[in-house]
Every structure is written in structure tokens, then in C-alpha cells.
């Protein structure tokens, strides 16, 4: 027996029901059962299901919702429908998904492409119709209905169902887009909440729009205390507020640009209890329509500054411990071996006097011994000078550089030296810089003249040693220069060597000495 399912009141009723379901529906999962019921009841179908193309494991299509008319018994068929996974073109939903066109099957139990045929037969289901759920650019899935009777395909019904497919598809697409936006928003909110850095957003008047949990914890404010208040009052120390307000006003007047934006700045922040602490701050303008809004990323750098200060102090300690050690060695040399040699020299001279009366041979031997001892004494004195020159401690840089220059095997001139004494560490570093530079001149430069100058200006001691030799020095190569660079760096000084091949060498060191 055949029934025509083209009752106009049924179709119009179905159209109304579907439209209403989509208008008031929140999410596709809520809407699908309502839509299936609306169409199924209006058109007299017994079972219906919605299938979605599985985005996670494509390409396949799975059932995500199903409906049966009241009183219908088809548990077995529903179970299979809800568990089966169909590929493109496979079964009724699969073929509709692939073709993008509605399909009508007169008797599913004898259809060559219907995997659920056996279960359908057991449930007494024969006629079936399916139409695609289509969005603007693709097929999202399919909707199918079944009935006991054999039915003839109905053009009007197919057209109407195709239109349902488009409406439902649009609805699903729109809801998915909204969901994506909401998830992105939630994601970003979660990122702001979890951030370790303080993130504060203000409007063009400097009032707080957002104050993330890290900012709340670091500055000691609750969210309720900060919303809408002027950020300058909350986190900027009183002495810096006017400057901050002026800077913001300038930036806004310039249309939201300025040289304070997009760079790391070290300034002082203020907590809720008024205590101040060092922060590193970066401000950016955020890209939204309307008057400019700014976001500041802040980090409490108290620990970092303390670590840097400790590092600097420890380097200075290491260098000064080295200097102390050398002074000690020089004193030990002076008090120990040198004293003995002096005594030996005097003793030998005295012995010589006694022998003057007695014998030439003895005199000759003694003269040799005296020469040996005087030679050893001179060598030790040179050694002591190399370790720590007492002329530097006693007379300062001028006399010490003078002694280096006059003791230099290559002709050398001292052009300028400071009149006043400088800090011990500075004078030591300067002396050893020139000593090392002159050693290199003698060893490598094949020069005929070297010049040395040391000048203090603007709180910096500038040392220059030049030679007219063959150039080509590599500052990275020698451990002597590297050790010097370290010693200078510990004093916040710098070392630079210019040595073009064939054009002589200039070594420049700069040491702050204010």
C-alpha cells in the first residue's frame, strides 16, 4: 500500500516547526531532536536520525541524534544506527553526504547500498528518505527518515527537505563559529589568568579596564578595588605620577603612538601598602576601534637586580682578592728572600775587606759571589715588580707608567698621565693594561716606537697604547688580553683593540673612575 506524503498542511506545519526550533535553539545538540520530531511528526515518518561528518576521524559520517515516533518499537535498529560508522558514499547517509543531493529509497531491505538492511527488515522498515545538511561551502552531514510503508518519491517533499537541510546547515555553522569565538575568548582569559607577568589594561584616560591575577597578587589589590580607577593612583609612586599622566596624554594626543611604547623600561612601581619596588615594564597599544587602549606587561625585578648587584660585587671581590694576594706575595718576597740576599751581600763585602789584606784568589772568588748575589737581588726585584709594582702603590700611575715606559726594550714615550691618585683597583688595572700592551708590542709588533697615554675626563680614565708596527693583532687570541678584559669588565670598563694589518696597533681601555 502506498501513501503520498505531499499533504500541504503537513509540509507547511513542518516548515513552521523547523523554523521555530532553529530560532529558539541554543546548540545543535539541543536542536536536532526537536527538528527530527518536527519533520517526522508532520510528515508521518516513524524514525529519523541526524548524521554529522566526523571532523576528528574523517572521512566518515556518524549518527549524533535520533528520534522515533511514539509507540514505535525499533531498539535494535536504533542501536545499530547509533554505533555504525559509514564512509563517503556508503549507505544512505554516506551517499547523500557525497552527492550533496537528497535521496529516496523505496525499500531499504532490498537496496544494494544499505548496510543496515537486515536490522531494517527485522524492524519492519522499508521506505527511507535522506537530505544533506549543507553550509555555505560544504556538506556538514545528513538527516534520514524511515517508514514501514513503501512510499513514492515526492518532489515537493524533497524540495522542502532540501530547504530544511540548508536552514539547519546555516544554523549549525553559525553556532559553531560562535562557539569558536567563545572558546578563543575563554582561552585568552585563561592565558591572562595564568600569566606570571602582571598584565594591566587601561583606557585613554588611564583608567583600569583589566588587572590580571598576577597584577592583583604583585600589587596587593583585589579586582573590585581596581576596576575603573586611575592606574596612576594605584601602582605609580606619587613622585612619578605627574610624569606618567603627562606621558599618557602625549601618547593619546599623538593618536596612540610614542617612544614609550613597545620597549622594555625599568621604573619603580608602588604596592597597595605604599611600598615601592623596581619593575620592568613594556607598554603596547592594543588594536581595537575607538580611542586608544593600552596594555602594560610588568615584572617585579627586585630579585634580578639583587642578583646582578651580587654578581658585580662578587667579580669585584675576585679581582680585589687577586690584587691582595699579589701585594702579599710582594711583601713576602721583600721580607723573605730579598732580606737574606741583602744580608749576604753585605756579609760578602765585609768578608772582602778582611781578605784585602790576605789573598788575591780569595778576593776574586768573593767578587764573583758578590756579583751573583747582586744579580739574584735584581732579578727578585724585577719579579716583585711584575707581581705588584711598589712604585704604583707609592707614587701612583704617573711614576709607575713612567717606569714601564723607560724599562721597555722598544722605544716608548709616555704622553700623558693623571696627576691625581685614583682608586687602587683602577690604578692596578690601568698599570697592568699598559704592561700587557707593551709586552705585546715587544713580542709581536716589530715596532720602532710605542706611545702611552692615560687621561681622566668626565669620570673615565682613558688609556691608549699605540705602536707603529705591523698590526694584525687578534684581541681574542691572547689569554693575557682576555684576562685584562675580564679585570676591566669587573670595574665596568672596556677594552678595544684596533690592529689593521700593516698599519700598527692601538689598544684603548676605558675605566670609570668617578
Amino acid at each position, binding site marked *: 500500500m502506498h501513501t503520498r506524503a505531499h499533504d500541504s498542511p503537513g509540509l507547511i506545519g513542518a516548515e513552521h516547526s523547523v523554523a521555530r526550533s532553529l530560532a529558539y535553539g541554543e546548540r545543535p545538540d539541543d536542536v536536532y531532536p526537536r527538528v527530527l520530531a518536527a519533520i517526522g511528526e508532520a510528515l508521518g515518518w516513524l524514525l529519523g536520525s541526524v548524521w554529522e561528518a566526523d571532523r576528528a576521524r574523517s572521512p566518515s559520517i556518524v549518527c549524533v541524534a535520533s528520534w522515533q515516533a511514539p509507540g514505535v518499537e525499533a531498539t535494535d535498529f536504533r542501536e545499530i544506527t547509533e554505533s555504525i560508522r559509514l564512509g563517503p558514499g556508503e549507505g544512505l547517509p554516506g551517499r547523500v553526504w557525497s552527492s550533496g543531493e537528497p535521496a529516496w529509497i523505496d525499500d531499504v531491505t532490498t537496496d544494494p547500498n544499505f548496510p543496515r538492511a537486515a536490522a531494517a527488515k527485522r524492524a519492519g522498515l522499508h521506505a527511507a528518505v535522506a537530505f544533506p545538511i549543507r553550509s555555505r561551502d560544504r556538506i556538514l552531514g545528513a538527516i534520514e527518515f524511515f517508514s514501514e510503508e513503501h512510499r513514492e518519491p515526492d518532489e515537493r517533499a524533497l524540495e522542502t527537505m532540501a530547504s530544511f537541510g540548508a536552514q539547519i546547515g546555516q544554523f549549525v555553522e553559525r553556532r559553531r563559529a560562535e562557539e569558536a569565538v567563545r572558546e578563543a575568548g575563554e582561552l585568552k582569559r585563561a592565558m591572562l589568568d595564568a600569566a606570571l607577568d602582571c598584565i594591566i589594561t587601561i583606557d585613554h584616560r588611564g583608567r583600569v579596564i583589566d588587572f590580571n591575577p598576577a597584577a592583583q597578587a604583585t600589587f596587593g589589590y583585589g579586582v573590585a578595588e581596581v576596576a575603573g580607577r586611575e592606574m596612576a593612583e594605584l601602582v605609580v609612586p606619587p613622585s612619578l605620577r605627574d610624569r606618567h599622566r603627562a606621558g599618557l596624554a602625549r601618547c593619546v594626543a599623538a593618536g596612540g603612538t610614542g617612544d614609550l611604547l613597545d620597549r622594555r623600561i625599568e621604573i619603580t612601581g608602588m604596592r597597595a601598602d605604599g611600598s615601592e619596588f623596581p619593575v620592568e615594564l613594556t607598554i603596547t597599544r592594543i588594536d581595537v576601534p575607538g580611542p586608544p587602549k593600552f596594555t602594560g606587561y610588568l615584572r617585579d625585578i627586585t630579585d634580578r637586580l639583587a642578583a646582578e648587584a651580587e654578581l658585580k660585587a662578587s667579580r669585584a671581590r675576585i679581582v680585589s682578592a687577586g690584587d691582595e694576594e699579589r701585594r702579599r706575595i710582594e711583601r713576602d718576597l721583600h721580607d723573605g728572600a730579598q732580606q737574606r740576599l741583602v744580608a749576604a751581600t*753585605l756579609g760578602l763585602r765585609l768578608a772582602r775587606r778582611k781578605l784585602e789584606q790576605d789573598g788575591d784568589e780569595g778576593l776574586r772568588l768573593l767578587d764573583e759571589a758578590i756579583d751573583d*748575589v*747582586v744579580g739574584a737581588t735584581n732579578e727578585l*726585584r724585577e719579579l716583585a715588580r711584575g707581581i705588584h709594582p711598589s*712604585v704604583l702603590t707609592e707614587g701612583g700611575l704617573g711614576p709607575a707608567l713612567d717606569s714601564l715606559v723607560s724599562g721597555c726594550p722598544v722605544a716608548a714615550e709616555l704622553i700623558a698621565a693623571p696627576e691625581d691618585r685614583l682608586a687602587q683597583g683602577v690604578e692596578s688595572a690601568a698599570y697592568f693594561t699598559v704592561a700587557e700592551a707593551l709586552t705585546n708590542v715587544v713580542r709581536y709588533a716589530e715596532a720602532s716606537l710605542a706611545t702611552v697615554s692615560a687621561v681622566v675626563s668626565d669620570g673615565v680614565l682613558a688609556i691608549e697604547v699605540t705602536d707603529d708596527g705591523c698590526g694584525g693583532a687578534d684581541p681574542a687570541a691572547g689569554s693575557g688580553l682576555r684576562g685584562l678584559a675580564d679585570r676591566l669588565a669587573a670595574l665596568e670598563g672596556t677594552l678595544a683593540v684596533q690592529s689593521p694589518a700593516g698599519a700598527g696597533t692601538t689598544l684603548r681601555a676605558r675605566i670609570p673612575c668617578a
Partner: protein
Amino acid sequence: MGRTVLIVDDHAGFRRLARRMLEADGYAVVGEAADGRSALAAARELRPDLVLLDVQLPDIDGFRVTEALVSAGEGPAIVLTSTRDEADYARRVERSDARGFVAKSELSGDAIASLLR
């Protein structure tokens, strides 16, 4: 020129040898001191013609002792000495009121006499 000498040096070995050297050259060593303060006391008490004075003393250095001896009025001639070179003291020897400097290992009566001329 008088010939009495006060020897000031913190090394007993050097004082002993210097005494023998100077006595062999006709000087009369009237006293020894091992540091700056006792040197000043000994000079006040013994009134030597000459003080042979080491620069590196444990309490105050030879230059300060020289100043103190000279400022006390009519004082002895002072000859500074050291294991170090005169050059190591930059120009301090010149600027002081000592007659001059003799390196310890060069010490002899003649070396001192030439400074006192």
C-alpha cells in the same frame, strides 16, 4: 762631620751587618732601633750625628720618621735605605728632608760619606 750613628731597621740581621760595615769604616754606632717610635725616642736620647733609616718599618714608614726628626729642630743627618730601589719610591726621597738614599746591598761608609758631602 760627626760620626755617631743610630741604625733603624726591623731586621736584626741587617742591623748587625750594617754595624760591622760602618764600624769598619770608622763610624761609631751608638744605638739601634727596630721601629719608628723607638727610633724617635732613641734619637731624642742619644742625639746621634747620623741616622741610617729603613723606609719599610712595621709601625710608621721612614718618611714619616724623617719628618718627625727634622721638625724636632736641629736634628741628625738622615740617610734612607731599603731592599727596594730608590726609583720604586717615585720622587719621595727627593721631596723628603733626608740627605739621600743607599740601597741596603750597596751599604758602605763611602756610600754614606758621599751623600753627606
